[in-house]
């Protein structure tokens, strides 16, 4: 039989070389993570040889006050900064979608800057900025985290604005006019048409921003002080004294949280994909 130059998707699945490549790809992608999780249960100080199963490093994580407070800091920063940037992102998206104003085109491009600027530059600029304006060193928690929260808002809100805006572009003006025609006032149009319509995008972007904030290292490293250590920064400082199963355990916990978020997101989105 003459082989066709073009494969159909079914043909691709039958191609054995392609199967091998896919398997190798998946292994290289997930093996290190799997390795990390497995060795978090290793009953040994070092991560080289398997010496039996234990959960003592998880206990150690929870007993380690510094680690736990870093973890709590990370969660607090992620939660507060994501809430703020979701509100900012939503309003930015609606403004850019609904209104025309002077220099709008350039504002559109400026919105991309925090995404394309290298994180290291962003981190240093934040450091310089907070020094320049003499941002006070707060003593009371969670005000100690305020500068990190501001830095996180500034790099996560463009993601939220862009995701919500791309959803809004498929909501045409006629739909809003139909709402008006059916008796809804402006507040009801926002509450009953715009918000329910962008809800999947809000959820998706909220979780994306949350994970971005939770595992951010570079920007946080430059903005955190002695009283505001986050989990990724703490892990980094622990790694400098050698990798113990304790780090594996912390990382595993972090991965579990993120997997949980993603799972929730996918379930939510697949429930809503009937629309549009």
């Amino acid at each position, binding site marked *: 039989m003459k082989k066709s130059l073009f494969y159909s998707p079914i043909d691709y699945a039958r191609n054995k070389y392609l199967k091998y490549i896919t398997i190798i790809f998946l292994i290289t992608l997930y093996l290190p993570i799997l390795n990390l999780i497995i060795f978090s249960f290793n009953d040994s100080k070092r991560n080289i040889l398997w010496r039996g199963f234990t959960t003592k490093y998880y206990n150690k994580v929870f007993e380690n006050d510094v680690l736990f407070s870093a973890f709590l800091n990370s969660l607090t920063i992620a939660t507060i900064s994501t809430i703020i940037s979701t509100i900012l992102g939503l309003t930015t998206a609606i403004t850019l979608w609904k209104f025309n104003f002077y220099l709008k085109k350039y504002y559109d491009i400026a919105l991309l800057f925090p995404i394309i600027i290298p994180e290291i530059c962003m981190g240093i600029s934040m450091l310089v900025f907070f020094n320049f304006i003499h941002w006070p060193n707060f003593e009371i928690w969670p005000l100690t985290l305020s500068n990190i929260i501001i830095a996180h808002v500034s790099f996560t809100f463009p993601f939220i604005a862009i995701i919500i805006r791309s959803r809004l572009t498929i909501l045409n003006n*006629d739909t809003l*006019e139909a709402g008006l025609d059916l008796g809804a006032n402006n507040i009801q149009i926002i509450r009953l048409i715009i918000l329910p319509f962008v809800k999947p995008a809000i959820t998706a972007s909220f979780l994306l921003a949350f994970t971005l904030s939770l595992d951010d290292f570079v920007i946080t490293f430059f903005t955190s002080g002695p009283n505001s250590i986050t989990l990724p920064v703490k892990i980094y400082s622990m790694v400098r004294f050698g990798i113990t199963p304790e780090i594996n355990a912390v990382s595993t916990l972090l991965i579990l949280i993120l997997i949980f978020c993603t799972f929730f997101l996918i379930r939510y989105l697949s429930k809503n994909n009937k629309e549009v």
Partner: protein
Amino acid sequence: MSDKKFCIELKNLTKRFENTLAVDDVSFNVEENEFFTILGPSGCGKSTILRLIAGLEVQDQGEIIINGIDCSKMPANERPVNMVFQSYALFPHLNIKDNIEFGLKIKKIDEIEIKKRVDEILDLIKMRSYINKYPSELSGGQRQRVALARAIVNKPKIVLLDEPLSALDANLRIDMQRELVNIQRNLEMTFMLVTHDQDEALSISSKIAIMENGKVIEANTATNMYEYPSKKFSAEFLGRINIIDGYISNNDNQKIFKSEIFGDINLQNDIDIPQDAVLGIRPEKIIIERSSKNLENRIKTKGTVIDWTYYGDMSYITIELNNKKKIYIHVQNIHRNTLQELKIGKTLRASFDINDLIILEK
């Protein structure tokens, strides 16, 4: 006529978009329970009039009176009208039931009444089995029905329809036209439709207004608009017509139209004719003569067939007269064996009744 109630009264309505005058000093009235159609080429301002009535645009000048109440400054969400959009504009995040209920819930109508009305509407549009579907799962015709249902479930006095059938294919469009007419008659609502489709306007409306460049040229009942138009533009826009150029001369109390094609045509003395008027004759009013006898009140002519378009039931032919002028004739294909006469190159005799002539103002 004065005892009839007007549903919509437009007075000197004007709307300007930047440099274009979209609606230019338009005044007309729509009676209750009418199926009123605004017909015009695209960009003539017909949709803008509808949007002004709905309150989605604000007029620069003029008044809009709906059911005797001046609504000129009333916001769109308080006006007693509902609109069916060209794009349907269904809410993509709501299912069919929620889409239809939207207006009723906003107006805080009680649950039992909402359920009753939605049930009625679902039967009317025959879409009961689709209530849990989303707009994206429906076909164009079904979305059209839902959009209509969402408007009429509110029981507005006036339903505004902005080219509602333009996205449907030909057969579905004809079905929907009949359905629209039936719904309008059954519910006794005033329907105001905007279209650029002449056949649609003629077949569904009780009254037609023809627009050009932001002005209403003429408004009349559908039959009168076709049979007795008074403006050249409306005669040419609604259906086909042969325009007979010429001038009027008053000879010894006899008005004579000196035409280039048919020579002198005697007109009735008692009718008022503007000096720059032309005459027109609809192509289907001209019949092919097979005998050469003299007929009273008929204008006769002779020419060669230069074009023949066959439509099955009808033939549209163009004949060229001896003076090189062309006229269009629509012939019904009553007999199979007479089709031979219409072939290109054949010579035909044709005639029409003087009473079918239309006097048109330029």
